[in-house]
């Protein structure tokens, strides 16, 4: 039933949904800036299409799986605005993966993945956590019923994207030349290449920074919009909490990278900022501004260590740090709700506020279940696609660049790009 047709709610959800849509631009700029110029057209097209394919798939099937109702069957203003909001969220999860799988994934394989994730993978875990938001009587996911809390999607959106990205990058293997035993060993490829990690430099820090600022801005829509109500008195507090967490995370990442590398590193700080945003997303309805600063700072720090862990120790090639920012810090932020939640805001206390271990354990169950789901189905999907049509471009194509081979065009026609790998 679409009850009290509250116009403010509809306007609010719609406007914040428009902001979340614009995150696609943020991700596009970030991923382009962090990868090489010869692959720019490819990653931009992937970003354009994972929204374009994912949104339609979500409309056709995914939304119904997630909420038990269809925007076709109930064409009301509220339903359309709610659908729009959920659709752009689904698209956010899908687009995270293009970063982890950048610079070596076949275009057509990526398109197929985009369809499957929006048709099925995202909606199922989303249903577990947000089903009742669709206002269908009796719709409630099992994690929801346990008391699992994910305000705006650290787990539903970001962890799902992060773990799918992890599955993808594992099935793909590292980029050519990323791990070489010796400088001459440029023929080594695949997961057996366990030499030292060599940096593959992002080609455009201005674009990457623009991307992060766009994402930061749009995140106010992501978090504040998740109240699904413009009448909710928390929307301003949520915006403040979101902003403080991001700022604290930037500080944390900057500080740690400065200490570890001797110089303040922009690329680490950018990722750290996003990590802060991702981690506050689960608890933005439930934690205080002061807690947000702590959570953000820790997330920014954690992100740096996670990137180093994946890059140097686990030797898993993640070109833009998507697994660390979205997977690891999404899980971290979700667990933080179990620590920092305050009854005054959301009706339940976390460990640090006298609530005991119960919420924390519930959060842990949810984090684990979604990891198994997203990583598991992702792994199966990518392995299957690899068997059937192949997931990775041929060696020569990867060297020449995906733009020329997959798209027959260049991103920077007229510029001479110094490419030596």
């Amino acid at each position, binding site marked *: 039933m679409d009850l009290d047709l509250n116009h403010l709610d509809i306007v609010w959800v719609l406007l914040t949904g428009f902001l979340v849509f614009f995150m696609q631009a943020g991700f596009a700029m970030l991923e382009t800036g962090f990868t090489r110029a010869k692959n720019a057209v490819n990653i931009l097209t992937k970003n354009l299409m994972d929204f374009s394919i994912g949104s339609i798939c979500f409309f056709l099937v995914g939304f119904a799986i997630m909420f038990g109702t269809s925007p076709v069957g109930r064409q009301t203003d509220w339903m359309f605005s709610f659908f729009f909001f959920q659709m752009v969220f689904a698209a956010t999860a899908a687009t995270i993966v293009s970063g982890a799988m950048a610079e070596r994934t076949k275009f057509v394989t990526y398109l197929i993945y985009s369809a499957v994730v929006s048709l099925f993978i995202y909606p199922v875990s989303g249903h577990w956590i947000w089903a009742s938001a669709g206002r269908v009587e009796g719709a409630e996911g099992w994690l929801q019923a346990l008391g699992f809390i994910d305000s705006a999607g650290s787990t539903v959106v970001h962890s799902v994207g992060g773990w799918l990205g992890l599955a993808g990058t594992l099935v793909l293997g590292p980029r050519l030349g990323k791990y070489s035993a010796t400088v001459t060993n*440029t023929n080594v490829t695949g997961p057996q290449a366990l030499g030292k990690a060599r940096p593959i430099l992002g080609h455009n820090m201005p674009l990457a920074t623009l991307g992060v600022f766009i994402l930061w801005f749009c995140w106010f829509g992501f978090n504040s919009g998740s109240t699904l109500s413009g009448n909710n008195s928390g929307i301003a507090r949520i915006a403040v909490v979101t902003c403080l967490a991001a700022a604290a995370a930037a500080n944390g990442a900057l500080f740690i990278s400065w200490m570890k590398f001797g110089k303040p590193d922009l690329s680490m700080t950018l990722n750290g900022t996003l990590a802060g945003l991702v981690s506050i997303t689960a608890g933005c309805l439930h934690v205080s501004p002061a807690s947000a600063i702590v959570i953000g700072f820790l997330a920014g720090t954690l992100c740096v260590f996670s990137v180093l862990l994946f890059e140097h120790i686990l030797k898993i090639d993640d070109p833009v740090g998507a697994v660390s920012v979205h997977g690891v810090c999404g899980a971290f932020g979700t667990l933080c709700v179990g620590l920092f939640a305050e009854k005054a805001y959301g009706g339940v206390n976390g460990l640090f506020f006298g609530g005991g271990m119960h919420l924390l354990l519930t959060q842990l169950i949810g984090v684990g279940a979604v990891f198994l789901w997203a990583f598991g189905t992702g792994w199966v999907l990518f392995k299957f696609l690899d068997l059937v049509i192949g997931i990775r471009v041929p060696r020569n194509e990867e060297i020449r660049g995906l733009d*020329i081979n997959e798209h027959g065009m260049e991103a920077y026609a007229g510029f*001479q790009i110094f490419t030596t790998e």
Partner: protein
Amino acid sequence: MKLIIAMIQPEKLPSVKAALFEAQVSKMTVTTALGCGQQMGYDETFHGSKTEINLLKKIRIEIAVNDHFVQKTVDAIIKGARSGKDGKIGDGKIFISNLEECIRIRSGEIGKEAIG
């Protein structure tokens, strides 16, 4: 004294540099270039129109050497730049020209010491 100029495929630069270092040649200048030879161009599209690009990206390496280093340097470049055992069209070319004089700016040394 000779000036060796080599045009190679861009992705071969790491292996050419490594081969040169092994041959004790570590001073060089690298620039990007566009070039064509026997290698065919490729097609590029924009807005539905196709065009043939036949100036391909190349890397140009310049090395000044004393005479007794010429063969070692050439062998090293070929080792790094040739594709596989039999090579491929597009591997590149090496030009050797006489070098009149070489002067080190910092110290004013000339000739063999300046190259060394």
